[in-house]
């Protein structure tokens, strides 16, 4: 019976050099359909508590979303999940592109990597079979060379190549994983975990079609066809198609929520230097992920003071704000080169930029100087020093030895009160969204198990006006009353709770944040219809929300087991102080109101108010009683 999945997972024991296929039944998949849920299930079940994130006991799971590979715009994503070397907690990062869909076409829903290979290897997965191959010649090579070598060796021009870069090889705790050079599992250091296992590449090629996996392929195809026509007819997807994320910069600056000078200011006086018009001048085109009609992926190429090619993606908004306004650099060409350098070496742009901005502020306060940084004059606005720093981080040389630690560990080493302006949560640097202007984002930063991620739930401005297109898209989720962007009351907490479950469901289904409402064009009913067509299950919105909630609770239980408590759900002190510059000058997040909001959120989530741990009742409701007993196979 087809239910949108292969029902098969590839298991790779790198210590022994063996592979095996494990199958699961449909009842199991209805609870853990794919992506975040499927990966978190295996991580929690198989990784021994307290495992060294960079040791052989860590478990790296790459799991395609349930709908990844369906003929549906934005159904492309897969999750990379392991214990994070950056945070010590639940590590998670999603990426789009073609790799996730290709994995499904190759006959697997997920790959579980355990142990550690004694020598560098790469993994070749093709049509239900897998082979561990010698990767010594690939180690140390740049990503395009590696991708070309894999395609030549396999004779498959369209093999989808997932790989790490130098940063992953050198175990930088915020190293990323890339696929097809253009799509990135950026956050929480999953590239370092892959590097610690001595795996440079996982290449996949399959000849199945999603139609073979779907319960009603014709209905699914019709939904996909209808939706692809609406992409250009909906303002939000039209905008993403027209400009991609670089179109966000000016609006956020105007609203006073463009992170600037390490989140000290909310507005950047020289925004034109990195804004849309500057970006347009270096844009060379746009690209797509698998079967996606939006085509939002920006591409830049130019030759001026720097030479940037279109080999990699971006810069996306996160890199523009991260290396631009947040480092006080108002030069889009330099920002594009910094972005390209991160991609060349395999570093997460958000954590790289956040760490550099933090060090720039340490320099400003006299806590660090060129003598501590191998001669590097890493002050705000010094773009050339930034460009110099990135390869050093990847190689952990000179200043890179310190910078590779990430902002939390640097603050611990430097002291002098610097922890107050280390803009991180649980060790993960904040994404480029200023939460003092949209406080629900602060709830996400603080409580997310993986740290300060911006895709945890909805962003507040969507819910200010009930007549807006975005708000109307949220009504089927039960959100009916507007609430202000700075409101931290129970109404906001309720919306946030719905948003987290919905966004987590997207991560399970393999849908991009830019697909479903309220952020974009795919209405809630469309998502439900697509899941029904793919699986044959009579799912409802409530069941999808529960699937999302289950995946959140799996992540939370992982963190509980690793010693995380409510005290870890906290913001950097700076966010409780007044924002400077721009229309929101003076705005801060009140500590008491924020703590009250967290308590209210815990109550909705069924989590203990003192510890932040899920209560047995909530675990029981979600079928997760087994997680409280440590590892062990649960019933489906």
């Amino acid at each position, binding site marked *: 019976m087809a239910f949108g999945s292969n029902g098969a997972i590839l298991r790779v024991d790198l210590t022994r050099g063996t592979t095996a296929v494990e199958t699961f039944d449909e009842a199991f998949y209805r609870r853990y359909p794919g992506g975040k849920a499927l990966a978190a299930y295996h991580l929690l079940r198989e990784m021994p508590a307290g495992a060294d994130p960079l040791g052989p006991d860590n478990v790296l799971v790459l799991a395609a979303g349930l709908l990844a590979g369906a003929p549906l715009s934005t159904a492309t994503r897969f999750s990379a999940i392991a214990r994070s070397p950056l945070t010590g907690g639940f590590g998670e990062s999603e990426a789009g592109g073609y790799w996730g869909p290709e994995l499904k076409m190759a006959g697997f829903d997920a790959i579980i990597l355990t142990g550690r290979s004694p020598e560098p290897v790469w993994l070749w997965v093709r049509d239900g079979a897998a082979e561990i191959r010698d990767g010594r010649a690939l180690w140390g090579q740049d990503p395009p060379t590696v991708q070309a070598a894999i395609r030549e060796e396999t004779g498959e021009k369209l093999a989808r190549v997932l790989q790490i870069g130098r940063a992953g090889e050198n175990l930088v705790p915020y190293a990323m994983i890339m696929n097809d050079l253009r799509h990135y599992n950026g956050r929480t250091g999953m590239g370092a975990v892959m590097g610690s296992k001595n795996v440079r590449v996982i290449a996949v090629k399959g000849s199945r079609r999603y139609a073979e996996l779907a319960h009603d392929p014709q209905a699914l195809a019709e939904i996909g066809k209808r939706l692809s026509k609406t992409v250009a007819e909906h303002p939000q997807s039209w905008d993403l198609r027209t400009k991609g994320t670089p179109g966000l910069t000016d609006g956020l600056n105007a*609203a006073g929520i463009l992170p600037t000078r390490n989140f000290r200011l909310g507005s950047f006086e020289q925004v034109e230097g990195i804004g849309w018009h500057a970006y347009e001048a270096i844009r060379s085109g746009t690209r797509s992920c698998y079967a996606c009609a939006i085509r939002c992926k920006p591409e830049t190429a130019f030759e001026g003071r720097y030479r940037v090619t279109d080999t990699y993606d971006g810069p996306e908004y996160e890199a523009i704000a991260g290396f631009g306004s947040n480092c006080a650099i108002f030069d889009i060409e330099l920002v594009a080169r910094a972005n390209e350098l991160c991609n060349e070496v395999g570093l997460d742009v958000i954590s790289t930029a956040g760490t550099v901005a933090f060090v720039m502020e340490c320099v400003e306060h006299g806590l660090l100087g060129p003598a501590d940084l191998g001669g590097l004059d890493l002050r705000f606005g010094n773009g050339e020093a930034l460009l110099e720093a990135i390869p050093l981080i990847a190689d952990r040389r000179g200043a890179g030895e310190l910078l590779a630690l990430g902002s939390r560990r640097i603050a611990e080493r430097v002291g002098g009160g610097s922890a107050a302006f280390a803009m991180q949560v649980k060790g993960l640097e904040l994404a480029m969204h200023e939460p003092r202007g949209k406080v629900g984002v602060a709830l996400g930063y603080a409580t997310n198990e993986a740290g300060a991620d911006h895709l945890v739930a909805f962003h507040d401005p969507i819910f200010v006006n009930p007549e807006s297109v975005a708000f109307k898209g949220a009504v089927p989720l039960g959100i009916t009353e507007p609430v202000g962007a700075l409101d931290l009351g129970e109404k906001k907490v309720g919306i946030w709770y719905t948003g987290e479950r919905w966004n987590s469901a997207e991560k399970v289904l393999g849908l991009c944040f830019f697909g479903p409402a309220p952020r974009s064009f795919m209405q809630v009913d469309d998502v439900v219809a697509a899941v029904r067509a793919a699986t044959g299950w009579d799912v409802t919105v409530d069941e999808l929300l529960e699937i999302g909630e289950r995946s959140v609770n799996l992540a939370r239980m992982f963190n509980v087991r690793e010693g995380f408590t409510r005290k870890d759900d906290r913001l950097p002190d700076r966010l409780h102080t007044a924002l400077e510059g721009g229309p929101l000058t003076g705005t801060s997040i009140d500590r008491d109101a924020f703590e009250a909001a967290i308590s209210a959120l815990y109550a909705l989530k069924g989590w203990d108010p003192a510890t932040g741990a899920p209560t047995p009742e909530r675990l029981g409701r979600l079928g997760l009683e087994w997680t409280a007993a440590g590892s062990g196979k649960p019933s489906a």
Partner: protein
Amino acid sequence: MDRGRIGQAVRVRVHLWGELGFYGPGKRARFEIRIDHEMPISDALRLIGVPEADVAVFGLNGVVVRLGDPAIIVTDDDRIDCFPPTSGG
């Protein structure tokens, strides 16, 4: 705020940022319009055809203003910027 007289024909430069460009003439984000006379900014927005509910930030000549403020009048050669409630990236 004294910004001119009601009753005079005016030319206004408009920039619809982000998804609001969807509502521009021919989906153009930047354009000029001529309106019969100076008017409060919310009325000008209605004439442009942008749904007020989808505008999060409104700028007049580079300064953020409140849309509902009747004292703010659009006059000749003004620049209007409309920003949507931008979300994640």
